[in-house]
């Protein structure tokens, strides 16, 4: 194993050197960095040209200039851009912006894609499966810039118009209810009688909720409130336990219920005192605390089989805490939407924040989310499709294995077979894909960033390329190339570690 890693690392270093050299030559071939000065008519043109030539060593031919650049790189210096800005500083800002944007999108896409893919595999060759397959192919064939323009039109402009007067018209309520009914029906499956009952309940419930939201104009001042919060918390406790350990495990049920009730008890103190005057670090601390405390409750309640119970309660605790945070965010929504900078058009189409907004932690948070919303949807649409296809194929492959048949034959419940035996093994090939995608996060989303005006890594690269500015382009390339190589290696090692049938070395 060690020799495999060392050999791969050495090979990777050579690959990176060769690739950066090739890239440097290509970038210098792509255009003349002096072009804008030559075409301009500044009075001190000659001096400007000379200054920039001096700055970027343009008098040295590209193959040799590469080594000058490489020497700088070894000192940790990415050089300067043609505007004489330090590329290190540009790179720092770009990475922050990109991580904010792409991390959320990647995490959501992974969670959603895995869930939908697994359900679609478990319901293979049903209407749900066919619709998911069709949608996955459709999303996969979407040009992202085209989607982005549509999103700006319908997700932002029309949505903001609607938010000014958030009533849902009756045909829309009926349509959405029917779709929701169909969705639940095909999700739960079963015989036609059960299907009909599920369809009826889901459709009526959705219709009722939508009517309530419309009549009370909920979207102009959203709130959850203690009653609904308590219901949701208990629902989360039961739902998570049912999937994670099964409701037969009484200890897990009681432990999750205790965590949920603790959340309900903490609702008012949290909303009214503790969450006021929030900072980012305190917020993160509370998030970690909620997971640790609820995990500990599960650990103490869970003997003799502690781990699954602790896992269940930790998830429940995290979700309940997230609900409280969501409600706190919601309480600031109206103030945000009607503030003088936002002026009732909360969903933003470009940029990463509203300039000069001010406000406390929660308002800033809402501002970030409204700016993240559209680009995140655009990125999710694309990667969601591939995750769905992956997890579906992987789970189907596993479900046809002999050990699944054995597990069924020895009388395990469907839940145990799927969650314990099938799901975990189906995740093995997916972990490598996740590793690749995590490595690609920093590379950013070139087109999405361009369309939505985020100044992240993708923009740094594209702007550098169109200005024929070598150093930002190379900085982008070094960072993404190195990460790609490293995560490639990690993917290989993780895969070999998880699947004993694979040998490396």
């Amino acid at each position: 194993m060690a020799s495999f890693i060392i050999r791969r690392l050495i090979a990777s270093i050579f690959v990176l050197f060769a690739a950066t050299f090739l890239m440097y030559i290509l970038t210098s071939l792509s255009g003349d960095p002096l072009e804008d000065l030559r075409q301009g008519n500044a009075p001190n043109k000659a001096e400007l040209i000379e200054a920039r030539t001096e700055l970027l060593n343009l008098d040295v031919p590209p193959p040799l200039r590469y080594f000058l650049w490489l020497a700088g790189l070894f000192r940790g210096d990415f050089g300067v851009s043609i505007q004489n800005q330090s590329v290190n500083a540009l790179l720092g800002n770009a990475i922050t912006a990109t991580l904010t944007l792409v991390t959320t999108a990647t995490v959501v896409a992974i969670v959603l894609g895995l869930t939908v893919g697994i359900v679609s595999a478990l319901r293979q060759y049903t209407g749900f499966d066919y619709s998911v397959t069709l949608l996955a192919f459709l999303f996969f064939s979407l040009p992202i810039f085209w989607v982005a323009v549509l999103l700006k039109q319908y997700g932002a402009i029309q949505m903001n118009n609607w938010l000014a007067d958030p009533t849902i018209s009756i045909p829309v309520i009926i349509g959405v209810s029917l779709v929701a009914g169909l969705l639940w029906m095909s999700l739960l499956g079963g015989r036609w009688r059960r299907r009909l009952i599920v369809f009826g309940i889901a459709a009526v419930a959705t219709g009722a909720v939508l009517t309530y939201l419309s009549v009370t104009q909920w979207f102009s001042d959203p709130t959850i409130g203690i009653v609904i919060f308590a219901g949701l918390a208990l629902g989360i406790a039961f739902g998570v336990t049912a999937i994670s350990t099964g409701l037969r495990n009484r200890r897990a049920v009681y432990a999750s219920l205790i965590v949920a009730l603790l959340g309900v008890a903490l609702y008012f103190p949290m909303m009214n005192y503790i969450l006021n005057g929030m900072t980012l670090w305190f917020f993160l601390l509370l998030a970690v605390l909620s997971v640790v405390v609820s995990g500990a409750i599960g650990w103490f309640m869970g003997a003799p089989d502690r781990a699954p119970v602790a896992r269940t309660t930790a998830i429940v605790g995290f979700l309940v805490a997230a609900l409280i945070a969501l409600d706190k965010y919601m309480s600031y929504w109206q103030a945000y939407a009607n503030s003088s900078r936002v002026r009732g058009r909360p969903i933003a189409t470009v940029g990463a924040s509203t300039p000069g907004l001010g406000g406390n932690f929660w308002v800033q948070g809402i501002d970030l989310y409204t700016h993240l919303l559209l680009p995140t949807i655009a990125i999710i649409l694309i990667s969601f499709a591939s995750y769905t296809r992956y997890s579906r194929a992987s789970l189907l492959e596993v479900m046809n294995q002999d050990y699944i048949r054995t597990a069924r034959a020895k009388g395990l419940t469907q839940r145990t077979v799927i969650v314990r035996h099938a799901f975990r093994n189906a995740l093995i090939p997916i972990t490598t894909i996740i590793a690749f995608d995590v490595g690609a996060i920093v590379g950013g989303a070139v087109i999405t960033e361009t369309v939505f005006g985020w100044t992240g890594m993708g923009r740094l690269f594209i702007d550098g390329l169109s200005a024929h500015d070598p150093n930002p382009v190379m900085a982008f390339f070094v960072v993404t190339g190195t990460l790609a190589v490293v995560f490639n290696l990690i993917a290989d090692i993780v895969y070999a570690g998880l699947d004993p049938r694979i040998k490396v070395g």
Partner: protein
Amino acid sequence: MNTTVTQPDSRENEAVAEISIEQKETEGLSQGQIVRRRFFRHRGALISMFVLAFIVILAFTSVGVDLWGLRIPGWWQYSWDEIPPKVNNGVPTLSLIPPVIGDHPFGQDEVGRDIFAVVMRGAQQSIMVMVIAGVVATVIGVVIGAVAGYYRKATDSILMRFTDIIITIPLIVIGAVLGNTFGSLGAAVLGIVIGLFAWTTMARLVRGEFLSLREREFVDAARVSGARDRRIIFRHILPNSIGVIVVNATLLMAGAILLESALSFLGFGVQSPDTSLGKIISENQAAFSTRPWIFWWPGVFIIAIALCVNFIGDGLRDAFDPRQKKMPSERAMRRAGRASGPVVPILDTTDPKEPQSVTVAMESVYTGDVVNYHDPRPEEPGDVQNEPLNPER
């Protein structure tokens, strides 16, 4: 006594009958016929094939072709570079009820160009890029992958490291370099360039296939009977890996058309005065609120072409690789449990003499004396084969 003997016998008979049903399907058919039959059973793929053929014929006959000065006129009254007078502010005349095509079915832009003609020209360019890129990438990828997988050792290491280098170079840079060197890029040049840098996944997949196939008995037999390397590669191993190649080639094409539109959108692809689907969208995205039709139609055509190619790839995979058998549904199992009589056992009919390999998500991973397993990812859309092509990753 009689019953105790006949009981296992009848079960065995049933099991044999079950196998023979599976075999009857493929009895007396050549490999090609089996594949064709399975492909035509995939409804989505079949429909996609007709839709794609329709789009291709429509795009190439309607406004005619213009290849390096050779110009063949089409049946449509306007050309993409012609500027007819504006009618009714350029609103599309196409309507389904009553069915009317009219003078400008897709409308006109602000100067009056016929959007139907422009979109058809764009579709032509995009299809050309797609096909050329697909062919170039497939040829290079197959050759490199075959040589690396067949000769292994130093050849393999060198070729695979070379592949790694190519993977890391972003295609946009190549587009920018060529745009700067040659000025206006035609669709053909763009297709070749995309092909020259998009073969990496194909090479990795073919290499993996070769690594496992070269250990099979029929290769040994060919070698013992004195076949040369070239003959073994092209006559014995390559036909056996045709499934992987064909499937990946289609997915590569689907990726190429999206990549072409993305490059043109960013301004690094097809240049003015010529046009492509991505370029039309890029030029008109600001006009969405006033003239949405200029924006809708090219997008619809990109999606239609990419979707059709993806579906054809899916159908081909099903046809070449039937391993993803249907898993018995819960309902079927309950029904089987309720039914009287013995349950027919599901027999494993796979050849027991396969080499040491495990299947990881639909792709066999060689585990014999392999140094480094090749990419474990299945040939799915959204996978590795599209990854180097997808500029969003």
